[in-house]
């Protein structure tokens, strides 16, 4: 044998092999370090994102409330006039009991009346309208304070700022502090964030409309894209002849999955709204648009799941005389189902966070009521975030972050569900 010179002696051979092993170990460690570095970087970014969102957003999960005993003056509110009446004047009068000196001029009285949220009068009105016999009685109500005071209470308005640059002047700070001393100011968990619809006033604004809008849109999206996507995938995978046409279709579907979402939005604007005359801003149209995007994802996931079912299953079924149809629906599809579900849920999670196509079909409107049906105009979670991020009022800064956290938690739940289903039903071959 013609060995290279270094290997001719035994010692030399061992030395060379050792060197080689060392070198390979080094490169493996290097690769590991790179991998750990990449993962840590990704996690660091995620941590920074979550931290910055939580640090601005957590303040929106609580809300400052004012408790007031309001005398429902029959001179201001009468049963015949309900639901109209001078509810704001009644609340102003209740506040004036604490600060009689503020009643002297109109401007001061107005300023004091601006301490509780603009929505306070409607909260009182709804209570009285529900039980008109309480006119003439004193009712205890708990109402959100208006945004500047809420910011003050949360420390977002700095008391050290010179007065003319502060949203609340010294007099207003003094009122607030006096009420706080009386124990009338409380900080409560802000359920309104998910139970109230949108509002111009940050202290009243909530995500109810957006949540329900997103729900309808996703439901429509699921109803359309799930059966169509699975149907298309089964045909392509199991029945379609393998030729140029089916290759072309496959390439197109893969391309479709990569088309930017704004293109689907423009398509929906032209076709659904333009030709079919469907209503603007409706979750039905939003869901149809999203389904255009989700369908390719579902087709691809379904085909992958069908491919993963071992041929032996098909062959065994065919071998005992099952028809092609029976093989697919009786054996292959049930076994592929966990994979299909996972793909579908991930596709829907993508659709939940999609903004651009919804903006184009008008789902970024300002609407102060939640949609009752998929045909009513509404917003969706991401478009609501878009609207809030663009609002000038300070209170929306933290609400935007809070809304993003809500959206993220939905995404985490959906992805978690996908992983759970996969682990629970997945079959190893």
């Amino acid at each position, binding site marked *: 044998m013609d060995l290279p010179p270094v290997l001719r002696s035994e010692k030399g051979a061992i030395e060379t092999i050792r060197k080689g092993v060392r070198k390979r170990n080094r490169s493996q460690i290097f690769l590991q370090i790179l991998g750990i570095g990449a993962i840590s970087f990704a996690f660091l970014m995620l941590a920074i994102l979550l931290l910055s969102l939580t640090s601005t957003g957590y303040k929106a999960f609580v809300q400052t409330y004012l408790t007031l005993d309001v005398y429902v003056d029959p001179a201001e509110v009468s049963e015949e006039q309900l*639901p*109209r009446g001078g509810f704001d004047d009644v609340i102003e009068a209740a506040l004036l009991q604490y600060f009689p000196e503020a009643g002297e001029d109109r*401007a001061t009285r*107005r300023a004091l009346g601006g301490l509780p949220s*603009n*929505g306070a009068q*409607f909260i009182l009105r709804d209570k009285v309208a529900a039980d008109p016999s309480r006119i003439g009685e004193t009712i205890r109500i708990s109402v959100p304070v208006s945004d500047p005071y809420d910011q003050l209470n949360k420390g977002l*308005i*700095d008391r050290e*700022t010179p007065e*003319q*640059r*502060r*949203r609340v002047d010294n007099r207003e700070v003094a009122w607030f502090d006096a009420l706080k001393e009386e124990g009338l100011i409380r900080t409560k968990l802000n359920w309104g964030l998910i139970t109230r*619809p949108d*509002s*111009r*006033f940050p202290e009243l604004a909530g995500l109810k409309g957006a949540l329900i809008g997103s729900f309808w849109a996703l439901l*429509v999206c699921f*109803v*359309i894209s799930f*059966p*169509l996507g699975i*149907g298309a995938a089964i045909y392509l995978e199991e029945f379609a002849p393998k030729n140029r046409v089916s290759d072309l279709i496959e390439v197109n579907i893969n391309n479709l999955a990569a088309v930017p979402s704004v293109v689907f939005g423009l398509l929906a604007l032209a076709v659904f709204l333009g030709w*079919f*005359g*469907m*209503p*603007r*801003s*409706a979750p*039905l149209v939003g869901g149809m648009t999203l389904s255009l995007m989700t369908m390719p994802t579902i087709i691809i996931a379904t085909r992958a799941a069908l491919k993963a079912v071992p041929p032996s299953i098909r062959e065994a079924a065919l071998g005992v005389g099952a028809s092609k149809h029976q093989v697919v629906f009786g054996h292959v599809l049930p076994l592929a189902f966990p994979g299909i579900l996972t793909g579908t849920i991930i596709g829907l999670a993508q659709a939940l966070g999609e903004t651009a196509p919804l903006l184009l079909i*008008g789902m*970024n*409107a*300002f*609407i*102060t*009521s939640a949609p009752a049906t998929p*045909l009513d*105009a509404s917003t969706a979670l991401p478009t609501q975030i878009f609207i809030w*991020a*663009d*609002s*000038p*009022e*300070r209170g929306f*800064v933290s609400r935007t972050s809070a809304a993003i956290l809500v959206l993220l938690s939905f995404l985490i739940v959906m992805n978690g569900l996908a992983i759970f289903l996969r682990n629970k039903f997945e079959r190893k071959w």
Partner: protein
Amino acid sequence: MKDTKKLLSVVGLGAAVTASAVMARDEIRIVGSSTVFPYTQAVSEQFSNSTGSPSPIVESTGTGGGMKIFCQGIGASYPDVTGASRAMKASEWELCQENGVTDITEAMIGFDGLSMALSRQNDFDWDLSLEEIYLALAAEVPVDGEWQENPYRTWSQINPELPDTEILVYGPPPTSGTRDAFVELAMHAGCEELDYVQEGGFDGDWVEENCSRMRTDGQFVEAGENDNLIVQRLNADPNSFGIFGYSFLFENLDALKPVAINGVDPSPETIADKSYPVSRPLFFYVKNAHRGVIPNMQVFIEEYMSEDALAPGGYLSERGLVSLSDDRRARLQDAVINGKSMSGK
């Protein structure tokens, strides 16, 4: 197959329901300018809270986009009201006429100032003339009698009394009504003040043609429509400026300070009496054919025109709208509530 049948019936049902939804509409639909948007939002909320009617659907589409949708025709699938941060153009009026939208009421609801502002951390007492603003931001300026590319990099190159800091201004993109208004009210006016233009005897057309372009060499940055983002950038760099509608500045006075223009600070008073030069009127347009057809539309218009909303100290002025004078307001309320038709452009 069974599944397919089911699916088809679902789709068919959807289409049928949709078709019936197009025929009738309970809620008022409003489109238009993003500047008028917050005011319309406030009125809508007040209106639906106090009457219990379904809440109007308010969409911020921009002035031009709003006009396009508004003028598409009459019927429940077209909006009832559009907001505008400038008056309707002749071309838009013609589009409306062509599509049968002939009876329109114009309502000028008040004024909005455009302000340049910067972080409170900056110590200098900024006071610029329109001419200086033009020289800082235009693409082409006169230098030694020659009309050429803007060479100015720092404020002190324009006026030695200004600080020696780099010019950096964040402003709205060309799609924004705020940008149109800024070009027209600040840039064109500043251009006309230039000695070069006055001595050269150039007319308005010349100014419009040559003074409308903002510079693109890095001193003026188009920052998108998100004003909150601009505020963060201004705080990060105390020497940079932002261009905002006054209502936005008004909400952020603790972080931002306005630049005085020709010695005048923006405030509701100076915008109303026009001593602050960069202000614009705000409008909305009502499709009169829809009054009485869309439920409660008249009530909504009355709410918009009420003293609670429009008067100084009303809830729109709390959001930064600068109110009209008493007699102009009275005329406006009368004309709009009674649906006075505009006669053309």
